[in-house]
């Protein structure tokens, strides 16, 4: 019996579970939830069991129609994010090079405005499809990216810049080869925030006004009181957000950049 236990302890799965203790509260909650459903404490029409949701999720992931909706959400998410990244980098660099006194007041005015309120105007201007949602993501995600870039560029150790200048690098070369790589850490943190903002905005926009996407699936299911189908998109967007967040954290740790 002991040697079995010792073998189990060495198995990679066990090691992984032990290291990632964060998973236990989640499993605990799911277990409680499942037990409550089995015990009949919760009406299944109001709160489906985790098992039911998991089954429906597995079934949906094999359905190309469903995958299409996931695809639509992901397209908007990533397009919006990358556009916001490009714009945020440019604006952040501009701010570091002297545009800050002009841009900071604009940022200060724009920040307390809930960007989701702009969505109806964007729909009227850009239609019900991808464009309005991508524009919404850009409007919201550009701010953390811009500020992260600025912060990163401002925190470059000056001796690194001097070492590059002495080697003969021009101003733009210094920005490209020293300042931006040095700012990568804070920029990645900004990307994490921006990706979550993208998830939130795309999902909400698809709930408010859309013909496809995960958010749209939720409201459609709501109209026909299909609770299980309402939970599936929520679980999915949560998993997508977590996955993106974890990948960036992983990337930040693995990259040879100063902490």
């Amino acid at each position, binding site marked *: 019996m002991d040697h079995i236990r010792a073998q189990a302890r060495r198995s990679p799965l066990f090691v992984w579970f032990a290291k990632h203790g964060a998973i236990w509260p989640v499993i605990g909650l799911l277990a409680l939830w499942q037990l409550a459903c089995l015990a009949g404490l919760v009406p299944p029409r109001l709160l489906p069991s985790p098992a039911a949701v998991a089954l429906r999720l597995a079934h949906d992931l094999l359905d190309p129609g469903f995958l299409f909706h996931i695809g639509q959400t992901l397209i908007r998410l990533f397009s919006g994010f990358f556009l916001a990244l490009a714009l945020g980098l440019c604006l952040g660099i501009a701010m570091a090079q002297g545009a800050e006194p002009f841009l900071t007041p604009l940022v200060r005015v724009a920040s307390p405005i*809930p960007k989701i*309120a702009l969505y109806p*105007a964007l729909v009227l201007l850009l239609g019900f499809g991808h464009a309005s949602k991508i524009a919404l993501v850009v409007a919201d995600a550009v701010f953390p990216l811009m500020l992260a870039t600025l912060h990163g560029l401002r925190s470059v150790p000056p001796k690194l810049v001097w070492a590059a200048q002495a080697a003969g690098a021009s101003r733009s070369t210094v920005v490209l080869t020293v300042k931006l790589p040095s700012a990568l850490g804070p920029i990645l943190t900004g990307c994490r925030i921006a990706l979550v903002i993208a998830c939130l905005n795309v999902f909400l926009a698809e*709930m408010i006004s859309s013909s496809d996407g995960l958010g749209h699936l939720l409201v459609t299911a*709501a109209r026909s009181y299909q609770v299980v189908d309402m939970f599936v998109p929520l679980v999915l967007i949560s998993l997508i*957000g977590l996955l993106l967040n974890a990948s960036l954290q992983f990337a930040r740790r693995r990259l040879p950049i100063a902490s």
Partner: protein
Amino acid sequence: MKQGPPRFSALRQVWRRNWRTVLACAALLLIWQAAALWLKREELPSAWETLRDVPVILSSGEDVLGILASLRRMALGFGLGLLVAVPLGLAMGRSKPLARLLNPLTALAYPIPKAALMPIIMLWLGIGDLSKVLVIFMGVSLPLLYHSSQGAEQVDDKLIWSAQAMGMGQVARLLRVILPAALPEVMLGCRVAVSIALITMISSEMIARQNGAGNLLFNAMDMAIYTDVYAVILIIAVIGVVLDVLMERLRVALTHWADTLQPGSTS
């Protein structure tokens, strides 16, 4: 220097500190106006038309009541959040097991827009105010939990030991030692929470349309009344700015004693 009547010198001070922001607003409005005139599209009314529409909306009693109802729901949700999430967050900051229990659960909730829970919550609680307040409460809880736990974690252990030595019970320690010491961070959390409360309020009202600012906005979009859409956006924007300014004032007033005044996201 000539001393004008007190009201003018106060105004002058406000101007001196914020003239850049005022200029930025004016610039934005001008760009908007120019873009609208140049594009000449019906869907983009000019800034001037929109500004003229704002008093029209505000003169409609029904609409104003709706906006006030929205604000009331926000306040209720935010207040609930303060009562529940702040103490819980402070406790999390001092208790590693509690933090390890709750952190993964909040991480799961983070990428879900709380307003997206409206359809499910409406199944349970119906269409009234309660579901919206609950959703707003959930929305503000995350930043309040996070910042309160950060603030509590950073409280100097020695302060707590002194309190223990004085015989203070756990709850008393939480409220009378940890909360004041963690207040700067908690107030930062409040600032974030206010903007999230606004976002959650607007989006929940666009999803579950009953009355309120979000409802107004959605209706205007649905009926393609272009000036109304932009006018409501302006009203919401002003509400957002005012709330942020007020919260920031409150934060500074309550925590000016802190060594390092953290400027928050965009000060």
